[in-house]
């Protein structure tokens, strides 16, 4: 069983600040982390490796410092990592990114077969959830998105059954291997990596591929291959603060009960 996990290095959006003048993310203010959904995807891949044997490979696209997230994946138990890094890839939108990553996956497939491709359900910086499905289309693989549980995996029959998260519950879906799965956080808990993995990761050097390693169609990558254009970036409107109730406890609870009643009545009518 060979699971390939696509990961992305993202700014930690819980700490990121907006530049109030340009309305863009001030990326320098936030530490770079592995996209949290991808982290759960790696965890799931390593869990499958433990259960069925096999290998876990990692693929990522980004600047050279994105090696840090590959190292993080090695800590978690991945075996190999590939980083697609080249100035020609810069400025790629989701369409071009899926093109580049698909090239990488195909190159890995020339060496060894891939049974499953995992992606996080989306990246926390862009929140598009488009790259995973994009890769599936380009690889001509079935895609199972928003997966919160892998119910069964049958290598003999080359078959996978998963729970897909939907608005009010989940649906059980079956697909043929190889297929692409995008992972929800609820699928597992991140485990604490053993020390030997940490040491292996500290020494690990990822395989780095640039544009020269592929026979790429230059019109499909970078800014040229990206039809997306950003029209406007704006912060969400500020929410109005709550109303402060002043007075004695009796007065305040009285006002509160009345306004709650009012709200419910309004809502019912």
């Amino acid at each position: 069983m060979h699971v390939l996990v696509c990961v992305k290095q993202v700014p930690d959006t819980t700490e990121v600040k907006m530049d109030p003048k340009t309305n863009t993310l001030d990326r320098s203010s936030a530490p770079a982390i592995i996209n949290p959904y991808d982290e759960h995807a790696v965890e799931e891949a390593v869990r499958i490796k433990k259960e069925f044997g096999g290998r876990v490979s990692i693929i990522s696209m980004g600047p050279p410092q994105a090696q840090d997230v590959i190292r993080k994946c090695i800590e978690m138990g991945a075996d190999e990592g590939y980083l697609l890094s080249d100035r020609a890839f810069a400025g790629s939108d989701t369409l071009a990114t899926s093109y580049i990553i698909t090239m990488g996956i195909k190159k890995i497939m020339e060496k060894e077969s891939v049974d499953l491709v995992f992606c996080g359900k989306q990246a926390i910086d862009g929140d598009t959830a488009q790259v995973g499905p994009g890769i599936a289309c380009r690889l001509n693989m079935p895609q199972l998105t928003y997966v919160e549980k892998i119910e069964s995996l049958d290598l003999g029959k080359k078959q996978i059954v998963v729970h897909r998260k939907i608005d009010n519950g989940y649906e059980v879906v079956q697909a043929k291997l190889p297929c692409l799965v995008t992972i929800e956080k609820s699928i597992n808990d991140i485990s604490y990596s053993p020390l030997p993995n940490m040491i292996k990761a500290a020494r690990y050097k990822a395989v780095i591929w640039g544009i020269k390693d592929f026979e790429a169609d230059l019109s499909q990558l970078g800014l040229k291959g990206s039809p997306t254009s950003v029209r406007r970036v704006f912060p969400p409107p500020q929410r109005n603060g709550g109303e402060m109730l002043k007075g004695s406890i009796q007065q305040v609870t009285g006002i509160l009960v009345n306004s709650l009643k009012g709200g419910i009545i309004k809502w019912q009518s």
Partner: protein
Amino acid sequence: MAEKFDAIVVGAGVSGLAAGYTMAKAGLNVVTIERGQYPGSKNVMGGVLYRHMMDEIIPDFWKEAPLERPIIEQRFWFMGRESAVQTGYKGMEWATPPYNNFTVFRGKFDQWLAKKYVEAGGLLINETVVEDCIVENGKVVGVRTDRPDGDLYADVVILADGVNSILARNLGFHQEWKPNQVALAVMEELKMPAEKIEERFNLNKGMGTTIEIFGDGTLGMVGTAFIYTNKEHISIGCGTLLSQLREKRIKPYELLEYVKQHPIVKPLIDGAEPCEYYAHLIPEGGYDSIPKLYGDGVMVAGDAAQFVNGIHREGSNLGMTSGRFAAETVIFAKKYGEYDERALSRYHDMLYDSYVIKDLKKYRNASHTMEANPDFFNHYIPASNMAMSEMFIVDGKSKYDRQKTAIERITEGRSKIGLVRDIFKVWRAMT
């Protein structure tokens, strides 16, 4: 059999990284274990880093390291309630390379130093807590971490695990620190445009100043408050012996708030936007609190060894030098393949021959004298403020009478002999 390293360093602060870098550069197989998310994430420092000791480890580091401002002026304020007697030194010889010292943010600086260490071939393991040393037949042979399969072995373990140094304590190298052996420092980082900092502090472009505040800045407790200028931030904080905070029942954040509101301080930081808040213990026990520094297969460096010179607000430089000495001891010991206590005693000798122990010895009684004589902070500083005020008022009173009143202010409630005795005590503690 698990892999055995030449050395394990516990803690990736400046002491641990100085040790790790020196050994990695000499080709040793070194692993450094840091409990924070990244080196520097758990560290707090007022912010002054001295060039010379870092230059001894990485020559010309200041050309590429992330530094804030070279310090060209050191001011000292003896602060009263609404006044301050001020002194200091400003020298343009510090405004040109290679400079004397710099303000830094440890969060950035330690990451840079860690990068140099990794480039030199050292291994860095973050987010991992070392729970204890592994001791076999009285010899430290490795460390036990909190991770699965978490044991790690080496010829030598260097403990640079910071002020509390639970590892050295577990080895019996020291007792739990007493409240008068540590200071509690709190600090805020306030954002302010560079030009405004330069204007308010009267600085040439890019240059920095430090202000150490005695007296009312710590409400008369033994310790100092400080204001340091960074590129686009001001660091303001205060540190006092834990024992004094406890005795006076003052909360550290209340003290910092008091400093920020002080009429002499307030205009300097007016309009600056708070962006970070820090708190940390600082080992200030001095010479008499230095723990056992080495044993079979183990050495202690930096804050863990109480290497802080509180009087000169030096610490990171002592840490770096001790880390380097520990590393050089390992490199030397490796030639003979011996790592027992006798072989590692070289570390002790290097420290005692250097400024590290010599400086601590010089001020061995300083903070204890201050603590035992609260008058230095509580009486003499306010009195000197009143005396200065008295001398500079012009209202027709004769200078002779003014001088007389000024001297009376200082000797108030004391005999002249008592005054002489107090001066002697300070002189003896500081020289």
